[in-house]
């Protein structure tokens, strides 16, 4: 025989459980959906949500079609072209991309902190390895960066370079700060690579501390160190309002409204990717997506758990995708 077509992985040839892998940022939202899915569909087994990181998840997700491969990838960034191609190569031809929401990026300090008021420009000048390409960053205190700020030493706990949150920090804050300099804008035209290096590279002399993926730990460390600044997911700020306070960016406070409307500059899209081939084979997959769709509204259950709802048009488009199961077109990816 040509082997057993129905075997491989799991108990038996198919799974009666949905499996999702991927980002630890999407993980809490996916688990919440999983719980609601079971409650709304009695008899269905609880989906299994793994927290592997977006990259590791993509690798698993794109490994193939079949019961031993996951159905859903949770991503805190868009799928990369190389990953998409890997998927194609392994027979994962039809991928459905759904943006489920937005993750707020929050700046915070201890309740008794100095009360910094920041702008992307200040953040860039304080954290860049090589501000505006003019040599290594020598700023020791916030005052060195901007005279209006107190002379407390710069000390920022933030996401490590492996994290998707770090990408947002680079894209949403550092690049914006960098672009305030016209020379940099010009550089962008000239050399994308050089621009990127100058504008998003973070100093490595201990002023910016890579802090792993454990945001609770940053929260605790901020509590112990009033001079430090933390950069992490908005939901952690909201949950820890009793020990932390937000740091305004461009004078805007980080609140649910400002983040969801994009007035607060830190926000990035969260996605899930689904294999179309699994839609018919894995029981409950469609219902799972429907559960997602019915909870990602601004007053939905996900926002209660700290997720920021996507803008209306995005939500509408995503809801449409859930219905139509429209397949991702790889050509627009980077």
């Amino acid at each position: 025989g040509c082997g057993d077509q129905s075997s491989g992985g799991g108990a038996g040839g198919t799974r009666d459980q949905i499996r999702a892998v991927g980002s630890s940022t999407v993980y809490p939202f996916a688990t919440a959906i999983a719980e609601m899915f079971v409650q709304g569909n009695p008899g269905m087994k609880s989906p299994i949500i793994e927290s592997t990181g977006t990259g590791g998840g993509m690798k698993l997700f794109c490994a193939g079609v079949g019961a031993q491969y996951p159905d859903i990838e949770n991503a805190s960034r868009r799928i990369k072209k190389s990953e998409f191609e890997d998927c194609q190569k392994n027979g994962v031809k039809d991928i459905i991309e759904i943006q489920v929401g937005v993750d707020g990026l929050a700046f915070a300090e201890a309740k008794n902190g100095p009360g910094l008021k920041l702008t992307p420009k200040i953040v860039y000048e304080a954290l860049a390895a090589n501000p505006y390409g003019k040599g290594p960053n020598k700023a020791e205190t916030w005052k060195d960066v901007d005279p209006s700020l107190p002379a407390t030493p710069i000390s920022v706990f933030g996401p490590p370079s492996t994290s998707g949150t770090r990408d947002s920090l680079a894209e949403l804050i550092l690049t914006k700060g960098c672009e305030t300099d016209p020379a940099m804008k010009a550089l962008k035209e000239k050399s994308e690579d050089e621009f990127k290096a100058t504008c998003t590279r973070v100093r490595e002399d201990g002023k910016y501390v890579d802090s792993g993926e454990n945001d609770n730990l940053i929260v605790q460390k901020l509590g112990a160190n009033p001079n430090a600044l933390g950069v992490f997911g908005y939901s952690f700020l909201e949950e820890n309002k009793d020990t932390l306070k937000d740091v305004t960016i461009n004078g805007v406070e980080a609140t649910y409204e400002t983040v969801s409307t994009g007035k607060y500059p830190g926000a990035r899209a969260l996605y899930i990717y689904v294999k179309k081939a699994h839609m018919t084979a894995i029981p409950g997959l469609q219902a799972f997506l429907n559960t997602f769709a019915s909870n990602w509204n601004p007053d939905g259950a996900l926002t209660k758990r700290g997720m920021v709802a996507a803008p209306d048009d995005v939500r509408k488009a995503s809801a449409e995708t859930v219905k139509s199961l429209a397949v991702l077109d790889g050509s627009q990816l980077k």
Partner: protein
Amino acid sequence: MTATRTPTDWKSDAMRKRIARRYAAERRFKLAGLFAVLLSAAFLAFLLFTMLGNGLRGFTRTEIAVKIDFPASPLLLDPNAITDQSLANANLPMVTGETVKKALGADAEEWVSSTAWTVLRDRIKADPKILSRTETIALPASTAIDLAAKSNASPEAEAAVDRLNKAGLLSTGINWNFLSASDGTDPTQVGIWGAFKGSLLTMLVTLALSFPIGVATALYLEEYARKNWLTDIIEVSINNLAAVPSIIFGLLGLSIFLNFLHLPRSAALVGGMTLALMTMPVIVIAGRNAIKSVPPSIRDAALGIGASPVQVVFHHVLPLALPGILTGTIIGMARALGETAPLLMIGMRAFIATPPGGITDPATVLPVQIFLWSDEVSKGFVEKTSAAIIVLLVFLLAMNGLAIYLRNKFEKRW
């Protein structure tokens, strides 16, 4: 040769001083030893007390007594045809919220846990007739209220607790749910049972593989192997495996057990096998030391009356070496029990809300559960994390206790 030495003058001043110095050194040494033991024990005590201080609260929960008038509630349920599906369709969460509001006031919806409706569901399922009565039901309080009742939290929550206390509606009880439920997203509803069972199954697999294989390897190397290149290679590999970071075992498990052997992902079986590979070297190394210290005269004695080499080992050497082997097993298993990194690679760092039924079902383990909870946003998880750590330590103590009982039983002097 010099002239004969005069007998040592033990009474001389120099000698007295010297002896005094040596005694001082002796006392210092003994004190250093005592200090080392006490310091190590103090570290442990500190860790344990911190955990207990934070974690014991995780075993209790706060409940709010809510009077529910079922007939008057907007529930659309036929008491004679209660099914899972009809309950699911009844929009219980919304109904619960409305009911609580009605009973306790407009802002009260935030006071009860967001999963409080599952209590209603279970009550209705257990007794559909309840739908025609008014009944006071203790609903789990929300995290904010729970925290406020146990320690201190935001002023609003404290105020609410005061109000509820005045009305006598608040009660605190042991959270049995914590011991019987599995992972979830609402800290008031999560439980440790699934992870506990996962750990149990995983440890069983680990023990069942690593102990016999480790002991067999140690026996082979110490008792039978000729000292040649093959033994050297085996010895080096084992010592080296003990030094391999656990995450690499995860990579190995991923590529061999999952990708090559196609064993199920996230299963206790694969987790146990991976951890067994990691535990085995520890058992081998400790086992070899133990076997080495069995006096050769015992082997001679047995061989001399015609025992075969296999009999010598299984009748004499092994029982005598067992305490040492068990030491290795204890520390190896303790390490395996607390390990998370390799399990990540084989899919056990996951949200799994149903306890595993067997070793091939998806499962997670206690340290992973602790790790996941420690990273949760909701503050309610802080005490759950500590409580889970207590459960893990109790597990560890039970496991060690058994091994230590065996070790003491077999410890013999010759």
